């Protein structure tokens, strides 16, 4: 296995990609804790690229290829967790969560509560937000808002590889079910994040937002790829003398409200960039919370930049226009400032 050797390089020089971050988080935590197991479709063939070396390092008992049975898989992970394992389930594409929804809601999210705290469910479920790539309606969902409506689940949407590494490690150590939605548009962004930390204890705590750019005129909250669009828009706006603060929540549940609300109280303006479908999106929740808690500070509308409420069309002539773009973020900020 060559991956671990590569990890020994000095931190400063190395840039981490998304898939490497996942691989490293899984590898380190499986090494640290023998109860962590990895399950997923096509894991051994490493089709999605994040499981390199896992089978060789940890053996077939702890690294299992799943048959196509999403509900069963999540339920099996829930049961295995209740009986002492810490499963990581790679669901690959986020559009495959729907088949397992009952297991997410009725078992993973509810078991601890309904059994009065007897159950502990340290399960991590990873799934890629696979939009913008011509895969059409059946592979391009961004379904995290649905899960935000379900208490008992934690949700992370990392937007840089080091964050992914640190959040995923925290998730694996967390005693709650954690859903990790990885924006596949960022898979190629190796090098855009900060240098790789060399610490195997590089943990990003769940529930802490990152201020990507400090600013005073408007708060732009950006989720996943949205945090990058927000930063690009902020640079564009800076040329016009608009000083935008960019916040990446990184974790959607629990949301770091103190950071977001304090920022809006300072700037008085808020735009939210969220790749999810608009209605009942994470952006809607953030907007609702902002107007509820910061009304007195608010000096303009809270503007959402989301994917339109349509399905994802296949044709390259159609697809891109439905998503948030840098131009849409800039326009939204101008509306928020008007």
């Amino acid at each position: 296995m060559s991956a671990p050797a590569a990890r020994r390089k000095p931190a400063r020089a190395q840039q981490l990609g998304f898939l490497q971050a996942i691989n490293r988080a899984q590898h380190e935590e499986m090494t640290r804790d023998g109860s962590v197991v990895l399950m997923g479709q096509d894991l051994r063939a490493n089709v999605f690229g994040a499981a390199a070396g896992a089978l060789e390092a940890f053996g077939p008992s702890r690294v299992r290829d799943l048959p196509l049975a999403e509900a069963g898989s999540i339920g099996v992970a829930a049961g295995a967790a209740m009986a002492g394992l810490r499963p990581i389930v790679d669901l690959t594409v986020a559009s495959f969560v729907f088949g397992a929804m009952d297991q997410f809601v009725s078992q993973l999210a509810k078991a601890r509560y309904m059994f009065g705290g007897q159950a502990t469910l340290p399960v991590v479920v990873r799934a890629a937000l696979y939009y913008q790539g011509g895969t059409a309606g059946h592979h391009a969902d961004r379904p995290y808002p649905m899960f935000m409506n379900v208490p008992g689940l934690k949700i992370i949407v990392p937007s840089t590889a080091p964050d992914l590494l640190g959040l995923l490690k925290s998730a694996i150590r967390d005693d709650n079910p954690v859903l990790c939605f990885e924006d596949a548009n960022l898979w190629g962004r190796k090098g855009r994040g900060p240098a790789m930390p060399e610490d195997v204890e590089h943990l990003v705590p769940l529930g802490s937002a990152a201020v990507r750019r400090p600013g005073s005129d408007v708060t732009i909250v950006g989720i996943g790829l949205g945090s990058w669009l927000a930063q690009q828009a902020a640079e564009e706006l800076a040329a016009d003398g608009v000083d935008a603060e960019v916040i990446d929540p990184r974790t959607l549940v629990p949301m770091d409200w103190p950071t977001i609300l304090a920022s809006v109280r300072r700037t008085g303006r808020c735009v939210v960039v969220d790749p999810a479908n608009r209605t009942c999106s994470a952006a809607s929740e953030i907007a609702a919370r902002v107007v509820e808690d910061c009304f007195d500070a608010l000096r303009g509308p809270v503007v959402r930049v989301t994917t339109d409420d349509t399905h994802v069309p296949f044709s390259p002539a159609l697809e891109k226009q439905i998503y948030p773009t840098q131009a849409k973020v800039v326009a939204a900020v101008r509306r928020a400032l008007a």
Partner: protein
Amino acid sequence: MLTTATHLDDRGQAMTDGTAADPPPELDGPDGAALARELMRRMQRVRLFEEATIALFHAGELPAMVHLSIGQEAAVVGACLATRTSDYMTGNHRSHGHPIAKGARLDALMAELLGKATGVCGGKGGSMHLADFSVGSLGESGIVGSAIPVATGAGLAAQVRGTGQVALCFFGDGAASEGVLHESMNMAGLWDLPVVYFCENNGFAVSVTTEESLSVPDVAMRAAGYGMPGVTVDGQDVLAVYCATREAVERARRGEGPSLVEAKTYRFHEHAYGLVLPRPYRDQAVVDSWFDTVDPITLFHDRLLAERVLTAGELQALRDEVGAEVEAAVEFARRSPYPPPEAAWTDVYAPGHDPQEVSA
């Protein structure tokens, strides 16, 4: 006409002759008597516990409906006693029998039914969602079929961790149509998981008969499609259930993989006690006759006498003991306090989680 009714007529009749016979090896000698006592004790616990809930229902003390296992005690107890306390078990909405049979304390179960702080789930689960992790009971599910993969996962954990534990998975004939059963049995068959799928086939899913919900006469016929043994047993015969399940449990424990055991049984009361269905779907006279013909406790009682395994006095004493236990449980439940209001918001997450969110 009930198809599930016929398969017991022979046994039922055989029993009523009631003349002396030799006990089978399982019930022979002091070990046999001990087993008989425990089988009977747990069946009585289920029965008397549930009769107490009926009384509580009529007294208006139950906050919600209950789904009774009365009539199904042999299936539930025969299966659970074939496992160890350290083995895992999951169940469904017809939920009291499973943890009782698995060995849970009655007082905490009864307190749960009344929504009390001392309930086994702190009052948060209620009748359909009992769980007692201390005896391997990983919880019942109000969502039909939903706990089937959970038991399967417990089996996976036992296999990965090499603990030698087995997982017992209760489900009904209605649940047999749910997709997660297929997904779970396939995984268990594939990986030789130590899981025993146990179908309590009581002939009905609420009002829908097995003929109306199943495309095959016996659920056990589906086992072959997963490469596992499937067996249908007389669910009113606690020893038959015990033996069939024990075989499946031993097979699982030996690492040879899962099995499907189907017990044909009878639900003596309505789907949920007190539920009134606008349109009758079974002949009440036939149902009433079951108390005389296929009551698993009476059948076992008569057999133990006939085979001289236990005496009438011993059986009565055992029943009295359980009666006292149930009475104490009811008293305990009644006297227990309700949970404090703030309990509504705890246990959503494991300790240490800071939701940073205050409700309006």
